[in-house]
């Protein structure tokens, strides 16, 4: 198990795939650990990518600072990891909290990237997200990691995914419960206490950017992704049908295919963001559909967009 150094802390990471291939770097969400990207590793390596995954500072097998974790540390760790990957094309993707770290990296070190894929992401804390975040933190404090998982599972995954697992949810939760500690998760959550919105800086992200948002994402709804689409010049918003916040867990084959196609399009010079809004296919390999012209993609009912 290789480790990077960040000051006195050790960061567990993994590199797989051909060393001369373009690389995908995948950044975990708050309660995740790097093994959860296993399906992506296999799918992307099969498409001739190198794949880098790691546990954030405070997560999984990485060291867990006892009292404070600064979001700047995650960006610095990501920079160290990307520095290990040589000079080839780098595509960076992150889910939720990891998407936020990916955005911050793109703002600070965008020149090193060939493409960016924020997933279930946000650049600012809306009142709803702030209050939900506070409630989740209280849940963690009062009920521990298991209770936080109990709150997140039904919020972030579909009935179709949950139904066959209802009688074995403990085993679904166990690895996350084992590798993540209450105090470390709390430190990660409390790194938002002095969070400043990234929105004013998003326009400095000039790399091709594909923003992925689940159709039914309750935790980070469409409006939060819309901020990214409007502010990042070479971006497109892709809505994943029937997906919730944690679609990277639920629809791994589809999402890995979207990541690979995006990178292939960018490297072939075919990518055109144009701040377009697309609907992803239901399954890997399917066709994208443009969001119906004239309709408002921020609404859940087919309302025609107001003429501006």
């Amino acid at each position, binding site marked *: 198990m290789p480790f990077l150094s960040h000051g006195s802390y050790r960061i567990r990471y993994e590199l797989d795939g051909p060393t001369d291939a373009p690389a995908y770097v995948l950044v975990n969400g708050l309660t995740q650990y790097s093994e959860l990207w296993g399906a992506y590793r296999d799918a992307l390596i099969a498409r001739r990518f190198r794949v880098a995954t790691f546990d954030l500072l405070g997560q999984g097998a990485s060291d867990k600072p*006892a*009292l404070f974790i600064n979001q700047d540390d995650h960006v610095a760790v990501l920079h160290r990891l990307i520095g290990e990957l040589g000079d080839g094309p780098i595509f960076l993707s992150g889910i939720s909290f990891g998407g936020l770290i990916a955005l911050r990296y793109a703002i600070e070190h965008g020149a090193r990237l060939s493409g960016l894929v924020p997933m279930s992401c946000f650049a600012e804390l809306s009142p709803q997200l702030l209050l939900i975040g506070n409630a989740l933190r209280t849940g963690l404090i*009062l009920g*521990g990691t298991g209770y936080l998982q109990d709150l997140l599972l039904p919020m972030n995954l579909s009935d179709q995914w949950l139904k066959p697992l209802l009688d074995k949810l403990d*085993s679904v939760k166990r690895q996350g419960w*084992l590798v993540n500690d209450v*105090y470390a998760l709390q430190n990660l959550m409390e790194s938002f206490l002095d969070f400043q919105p990234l929105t004013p800086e998003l326009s400095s992200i000039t790399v091709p950017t594909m923003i992925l948002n689940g159709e039914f994402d309750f935790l980070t709804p469409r409006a939060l992704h819309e901020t990214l689409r409007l502010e990042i010049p070479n971006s497109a918003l892709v809505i994943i049908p029937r997906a919730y916040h944690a679609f990277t867990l639920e629809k791994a084959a589809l999402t890995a295919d979207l990541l690979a196609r995006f990178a292939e399009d960018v490297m072939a010079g075919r990518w055109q963001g144009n701040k377009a809004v697309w609907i992803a296919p239901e399954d890997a390999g399917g066709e994208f559909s443009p969001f119906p012209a004239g309709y408002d993609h921020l609404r859940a009912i087919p309302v025609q967009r107001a003429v501006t």
Partner: protein
Amino acid sequence: MSAFFGPLEADGRVPPHQQTRVAAFLISAHGALARQFAFALPAKLDAAWQTELNAQFYRESEIVSLLMRATAWVPDLALGHMAVSWEMAWLPAPIEGLADHARGQAIQLATLAHAIHAGIRPAALLPTEANPKDPFAMALRRIEFESSRLLQAQILFLKGPDLQPFRDAVSAVLERRHAEVRRLWHETLDSIGVAPS
């Protein structure tokens, strides 16, 4: 070496020799906290935060009492010298760069409590096939759960505005405490064939 207790007894219980050594370590650690909270507690509470001190004292005492009763004890000759090294480790050490003695004592106690409550997760050592009705297994789950609740007082104090000017010194003491407690805990587990991943 396994990351979990075992091999389990036929009825799914943790082997008594593993119970004995782990319970002895936890009693030493939480017993030290109970003693230190007791010494810090005035006879009559005259500040709101002392109600939390009172709660911490009784929760630590409960953990000790619970382990005394829930553990399947067996004779363990190694416990004598191990207990001495544990008890030495719980003693306060001076904090560099902090002249205020009373504040230093409070930081010492809070950092020790943080390291024990945050860094020791005994329930995470139970394999999935452990008997959920085993009182020892139940005790470990309760101790881990209560520890994460008790921890909140230490987090509030150590991250609080009063200690903001001493943030680096406090963080350094806390990281040292964590490393020390983790080392002792891992040595104890290693001595019974358990290696947490």
